[in-house]
């Protein structure tokens, strides 16, 4: 027996992007189906490091990031839980003078965006963040940034969407989408036929196939950041830590566990799943033990990884399809989508309702991948999607 469902908006992918869009759209009174091939929030959105960070993002992401920044402290009202969001500040460390110069240059570029960055020298660092050891010459501090529990936040948005009346359909992979008169016809799961006026493609690392189906090709690769967590420890780290140039990022959750990342994992036979490499995880652990004297005698209790869609220029695709009216894309967050996702959800809802966003998103147009002569293409990326990693991979997330 086949089931039928008729909605205003069908959303492919119940990660944080899809479920926050679903919630926002319900708030506007629209009927919404949120479809996920597995469980909502079980992919990147639910397994990421949990960094809620604006610092370090490229200038063009900051308006969107600021919009999301305003949402994070309101989670309790919005989804019924605070998601363990902690405004701890984000401290980005410099290993040497060149790193410090890069932090200074960044602070200059983003001045006036509302980040309130504070540059801290070696002595200030020792005084205020004495638990940071290792060879660190200085840092840049963003007091308004922090961290949260991705497992709760992502599941929480999907649950809130369900309570608000969204049709949340889990274990229901979308198998085909076609343009059908004024809207779309979707085939999903074993027996579900859906019709929708709008389709949001928020299928994360799997989104490129849906874009390609409508003639839009995106150089989407997959990355698998490695995560390590320690046993619960006494309170040591007071801020979310990042490193200029990458290599390590770390935070301590309220329960006491320290979460540390900084290497890349490898996919399993089923490339939708991945697991850290032993030597990669050990490298992160050793770096953490060196950088944080308080962790020197700690034990790691678990590793994990997740599947993230990455685009060479480090920016996501967000916006209207250029080939198909009613189709909207939002994917390819390249290791940094957790913080901005709640803002992206609101923007997507505006795109459905108004056809445009009140927050600038032009830089994220899918049109930027239109075939152009190689020589004229600008590339600010450092190759997050590439398989081989430098010694200290330049990570954009933390």
């Amino acid at each position, binding site marked *: 027996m086949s089931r039928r469902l008729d909605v205003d908006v069908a959303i492919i992918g119940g990660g944080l992007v899809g479920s926050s869009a679903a919630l926002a759209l319900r708030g506007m009174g629209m009927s919404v189906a949120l479809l996920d091939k597995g469980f909502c929030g*079980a992919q990147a959105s639910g397994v990421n490091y949990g960094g809620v960070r604006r610092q370090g993002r490229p200038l063009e992401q900051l308006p969107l990031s600021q919009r999301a920044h305003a949402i994070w402290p309101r989670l309790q009202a919005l989804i019924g839980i605070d998601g363990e969001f902690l405004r701890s500040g984000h401290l980005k460390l410099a290993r040497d003078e060149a790193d410090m110069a890069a932090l200074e240059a960044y602070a200059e570029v983003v001045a006036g965006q509302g980040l309130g960055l504070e540059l801290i020298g070696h002595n200030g660092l020792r005084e205020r963040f004495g638990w940071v050891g290792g060879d660190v010459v200085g840092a840049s501090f963003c007091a308004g940034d922090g961290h949260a529990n991705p497992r709760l936040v992502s599941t929480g948005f999907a649950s809130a969407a369900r309570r608000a009346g969204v049709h949340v359909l889990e274990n229901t992979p979308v198998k085909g989408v076609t343009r059908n008169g004024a809207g779309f016809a979707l085939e999903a799961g074993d027996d579900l036929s859906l019709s929708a006026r709008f389709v949001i493609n928020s299928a994360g690392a799997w989104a490129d196939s849906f874009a390609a189906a409508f003639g839009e090709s995106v150089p989407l690769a997959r990355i698998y950041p490695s995560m390590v967590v320690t046993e619960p420890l006494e309170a040591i780290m007071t801020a979310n830590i990042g490193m200029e140039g990458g290599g390590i990022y770390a935070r301590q959750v309220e329960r006491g566990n320290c979460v540390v990342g900084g290497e890349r994992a490898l996919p399993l036979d089923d490339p939708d799943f991945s697991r*850290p490499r*032993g030597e990669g995880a050990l490298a992160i652990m*050793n770096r953490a033990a060196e950088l944080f004297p308080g962790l020197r005698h700690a*034990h790691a*209790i678990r590793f994990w990884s997740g599947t993230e869609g990455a685009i060479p220029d480090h920016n996501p695709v967000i916006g209207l399809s250029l080939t198909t009216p009613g189709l909207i894309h939002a994917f390819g967050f390249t290791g940094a989508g957790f913080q901005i996702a709640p803002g992206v959800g609101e923007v997507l809802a505006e795109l459905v309702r108004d056809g445009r966003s009140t927050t600038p998103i032009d830089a994220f147009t899918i049109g930027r991948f239109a075939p152009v002569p190689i020589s004229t293409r600008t590339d600010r990326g450092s190759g997050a999607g590439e398989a081989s990693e430098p010694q200290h991979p330049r990570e954009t997330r933390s």
Partner: protein
Amino acid sequence: MTAPAQPLIVGAGPAGVRAAETLVKAGLRPLVVDEAPASGGQIYRQRLVADERSSTALYGSEASKAETLHRDFAALAGRLDYWPQALLWNLRDGKADVAVAGTSRKIAYDGLILATGATDRILPMPGWTLPGVFTLGGAQIALKAQGCAIGSRVVFLGSGPLLYLVAWQYLKAGVDVAAVLDTAPFNAKFNLLRGLTLEPAVILRGMRMTAELRLRGVALHYGVEDVRVEGDRRVEAIMWRQGSRSRTLSCDGIGYGLALRSETQLADLAGCRFRFDQRDRAWLPESDAGGRGSVPGVYLAGDGAAIAGADAAELAGERAGLALLEDRGLAHAPERAVAIERALSRIGRFRNVLESAFPFPAHWAKDIADETPVCRCEEISAGEVRRAVGNFEISELNRLKAVSRIGMGRCQGRICGSVAAEILAGETGRGIDAVGRLRSQAPVKPIPLALTMAATGGAEAAE
């Protein structure tokens, strides 16, 4: 990497030792790793420091089997590589990460025999986290390895043959055993009569132990329900209900266990397919009669493959060794293999008998009081787990882990995982086999952050 790839055996218990012996006899040189300081595994665990106790005092009726196993393993010295106190913490892409002597070594292997054994299975009850409550296995280890008892007046509680065995061992060691509380009704024990034709010696030994316990004045209670441990800062008493009667007994130590559960994380990390086993109420790695897992070159033997006891573990270890030899095109004693399989299937039938005589009280899970802690690593109560199931409309175990943290702590769900599954099944009104299985992650046990990677791998590097 200069080391030639050796077969790798994880576990030097009955299964691992017999697997190693089989390979050595065929001219192979396996590497055996075990995190314990000496061979023997759980049942034939050796004492840490030599003392005046005889092996009969240590292993009781199983003393000669223990001595034989230890001696046979010692005789293999020089023809295999053996790393005690070596934790295999990760498997990936046909290589193993082993922490030994403060560093981690990457081991390439050609054939992997997982003989990882089992640990106690429990269900939480009020007061189970009070100091003085031990698992049955833990109570036995204290006695065997350290020569000390868990209390001066001890109660044993639970289900399974180990319940009576450990109680009897304590009695023999001169400890005051206040009572044995069996969660199964007395009439379940009549099922044991069906076992007489299969394993008469085992049944008679069990009967002798029970008789001796009774004779020496140990109270045996059956059909025990609603158990709670009382005490301020440590165990002071145990309370339970039998039919309509409530009872209390003062004690300062409790040994508790509801049979065993297989250690399967390495099989999971190796990529083996799992199936749900009704008898063990657990997901177990699939294997054929020779112990071959679903991944070529990975073999499973002993209690880590399915709970079957020590004799079966020895046989299964040998059988897995033969399977490895056969798969390599070496001489592999097919008649012996058939005989072993026949013996194992008889033990399997005997296991069915034991299961009906010592059933797992699965219905307890549904009644665990909300305030009872179910995950001691992460300090999560039954009520918190139930609320997480309700609030997030959870239907699958890994999702439950994600939103409640159950199974995320030091034990990685080895202790609380089956409890979480029982509660989830109860809350969602579905079978325990329909709520999924916790995915394993490395490291299978905690490892130090400062653990460094050794420059070279291979067995010779450790010598």
